[in-house]
């Protein structure tokens, strides 16, 4: 059986399972559609939350980002897990006690204002749709590779599938479907990691293998990796390079963004008791940590294997003891078929620039000069081409002279010849790079899709809840029938899938980076208003409304200024580079500043406006104690 057929078979089987569960548990009433009758226990709920939470960003993208950056991208690991501590301590138990269905509903009641509720809905929609774009990016990458179609076709197929079971299922279907998806994705993530960890370090537990010894050379694995990448002119893997301030702010944005994500918070409305809400957050983190402690091992080992593929000598620990991989091997060898497969997606490419029949992969440090040269060539001005060529050659000579022990000069290297390596392909290509059996590759494909689709479905549920329950039933047309409400929910799901897919065709970054922007937006708008709603009796509707608007607007403007208006490439006002960022704060980190602005504005405005009325003060008192948490009431 060919790899293609095998992939298709495993992917189809996994989908049949999810859709089967969704149909079996089809939602019959609105209460079931949103919150599954609160019959879901903490362990199951934790597992479903983990599937909901771990998206294409975690599964497909994150290890790739860690692989190519190393220590600096530990921010993703800490940020996306630390948020659960905030959820368990600061939000989940109180929102469960409150006992309604959606996040905007809490905002509307606590701040006694339909306007606050509508602004909550708008914030939720912006956050969730940005997040869905990131998922669609991941779905596009996966389908394009495994169905051997273009990225755009892959995206549309994925969109159709998400639509089918999110719309049919509702929450109850999704809860059990997501438990199944968690199982598939965790198996898919860990099996190749175990194999690769065994190959490289002899330890079958990847988190231990990461800090273990490299089999080929007998040196500590991370030290070996550091040596290998610095030989090739890259920055040491374990060292800290970027700004400490930006690292702290980015981690914080991811953490408080996690705690402010509506589709995660909604999960804690479905547990039977307040104490279960706390426990649920703990279980969710346990299931998430299973993947998150493996991810840094996957990242570092993928980086090692990729580099060792390009420089076969690295297997034994001597980078330059053998020549670089040959072009003939890449084009014909059975072991390197994965390179040719990925080349067709356009996410991996190479070019024998110096015509020596070998593909030299290293950091030539001349990316900026190469771009300038290409621009000069398109302009056709000979003088400009000559100047750009000279600058490019000078930069290359500089890099080559600085490479420690590299035979760059005598072998006449002419720049990095592995011209494209998309970060997002690392996890999916990992089993192929390590020559693992075909069924492992097929399972990874199914796992990547499970991750992307489960999150997309959870987000769509949050979106449809906000539109049908908060916007239409709660404010615009309170008399709408239950049937009409369900209809509105489904229509809004379809509309959001369409918007996200269209925007996903030109995503503002790798899957994890797009998702990180969604976290910044959640951090700046939803988290602060929920915190103040629970921990302050002084902040009233004026403060909350002003705070949400200030936090969301400042963050979204900062992001658009660097990433382009509505992420349309070329419409950005400033270049998206560390030098151009305000105080070196990246757009993805700005959510933390947005949250500070939100808090400051809210407290400032509250100081000069009226205290919240007595019944709201009592509401705050009541959500602070667990006793008396009944089932949810819809209205």
């Amino acid at each position: 059986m060919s790899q293609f057929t095998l992939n298709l078979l495993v992917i189809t089987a996994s989908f049949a399972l999810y859709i089967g569960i969704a149909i079996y548990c089809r939602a019959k009433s609105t209460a079931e559609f949103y919150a599954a009758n609160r019959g879901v226990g903490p362990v199951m709920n934790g597992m479903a939350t983990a599937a909901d939470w771990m998206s294409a960003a975690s599964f497909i993208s994150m290890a790739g980002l860690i692989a190519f950056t190393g220590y600096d991208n530990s921010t993703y690991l800490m940020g996306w897990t630390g948020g659960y501590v905030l959820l368990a301590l600061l939000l989940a138990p109180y929102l469960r006690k409150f006992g309604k269905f959606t996040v905007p509903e809490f905002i509307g009641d606590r701040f006694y204002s339909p306007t606050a509720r509508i602004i909550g809905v708008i914030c939720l929609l912006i956050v969730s749709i940005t997040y869905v774009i990131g998922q669609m990016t991941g779905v596009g990458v996966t389908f394009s590779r495994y169905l051997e179609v273009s990225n755009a076709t892959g995206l549309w197929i994925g969109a159709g599938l998400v639509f089918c079971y999110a719309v049919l299922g509702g929450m109850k279907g999704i809860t059990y479907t997501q438990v199944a998806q968690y199982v598939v994705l965790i198996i898919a993530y860990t099996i190749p990691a175990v194999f690769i960890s065994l190959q490289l370090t002899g330890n079958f537990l990847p988190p231990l293998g990461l800090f273990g010894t490299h089999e080929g050379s007998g040196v500590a694995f991370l030290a070996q990796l550091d040596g290998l990448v610095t030989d090739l002119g890259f920055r040491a893997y374990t060292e800290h390079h970027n700004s400490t301030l930006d690292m702290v702010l980015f981690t914080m944005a991811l953490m408080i963004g996690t705690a402010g994500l509506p589709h995660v918070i909604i999960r804690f409305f479905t547990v039977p008791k307040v104490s279960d809400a706390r426990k649920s957050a703990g279980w969710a983190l346990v299931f998430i940590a299973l993947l998150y402690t493996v991810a840094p091992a996957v990242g570092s080992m993928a980086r090692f294997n990729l580099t060792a593929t390009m420089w076969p000598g690295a297997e034994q620990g001597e980078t330059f003891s053998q020549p670089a991989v040959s072009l003939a091997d890449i084009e014909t060898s059975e072991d390197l078929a994965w390179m040719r497969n990925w080349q067709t997606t356009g996410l991996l490419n190479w070019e024998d620039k110096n015509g020596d029949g070998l593909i030299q992969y290293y950091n030539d440090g001349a990316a900026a000069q190469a771009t300038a040269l290409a621009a000069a060539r398109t302009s056709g001005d000979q003088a400009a081409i000559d100047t750009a060529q000279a600058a490019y050659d000078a930069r290359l000579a500089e890099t080559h002279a600085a490479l420690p022990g590299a035979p760059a000069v005598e072998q006449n290297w002419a720049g990095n010849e592995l011209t494209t390596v998309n970060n997002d392909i690392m996890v999916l290509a990992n089993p192929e790079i390590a020559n693992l059996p075909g069924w492992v590759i097929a399972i990874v494909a199914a796992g990547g899709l499970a991750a992307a689709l489960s999150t997309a479905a959870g987000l769509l549920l949050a979106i449809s809840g906000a539109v049908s329950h908060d916007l239409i039933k709660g404010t615009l047309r309170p008399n709408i029938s239950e049937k009409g409400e369900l209809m509105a929910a489904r229509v809004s799901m379809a509309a959001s899938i369409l918007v996200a897919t269209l925007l996903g065709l030109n995503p503002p970054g790798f899957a994890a980076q797009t998702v990180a922007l969604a976290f910044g937006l959640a951090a700046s708008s939803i988290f602060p208003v929920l915190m103040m709603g629970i921990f302050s009796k002084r902040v009233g509707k004026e403060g909350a409304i002003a705070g949400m608007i200030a936090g969301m607007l400042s963050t979204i403007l900062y992001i658009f200024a660097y990433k382009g208006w509505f992420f349309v490439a070329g419409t950005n006002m400033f270049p998206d580079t560390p030098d151009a960022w305000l105080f070196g704060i990246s757009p993805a980190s700005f959510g933390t500043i947005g949250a500070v602005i939100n808090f400051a504005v809210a407290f400032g405005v509250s100081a000069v406006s009226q205290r919240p009325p007595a019944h709201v003060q009592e509401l705050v008192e009541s959500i602070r104690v667990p006793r008396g948490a009944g089932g949810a009431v819809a209205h």
Partner: protein
Amino acid sequence: MSDRQSSNAYWQANLRIIYICLAIWALVSYGFGIILRPLLSGISVGGTDLGFWFAQQGSILCFIALIFFYTWRMNRLDAEHGVDE
């Protein structure tokens, strides 16, 4: 009135536990993982240093422990103040 006082004491106790947990939360991630990493650079762990371990694994394990500690402590506190479900 005594009800109000009791719930006030409960809330203050809850806040105290939250502060302690959040201090540890910040120490293992922002502290050991990022800002204090240079101070821990002397302690080597598998080819790198302790700060790297905290950033990539240690902090996550601490987070799990913190949530379960908080859950256990709060269940006791709920019972002590008679506000459990």
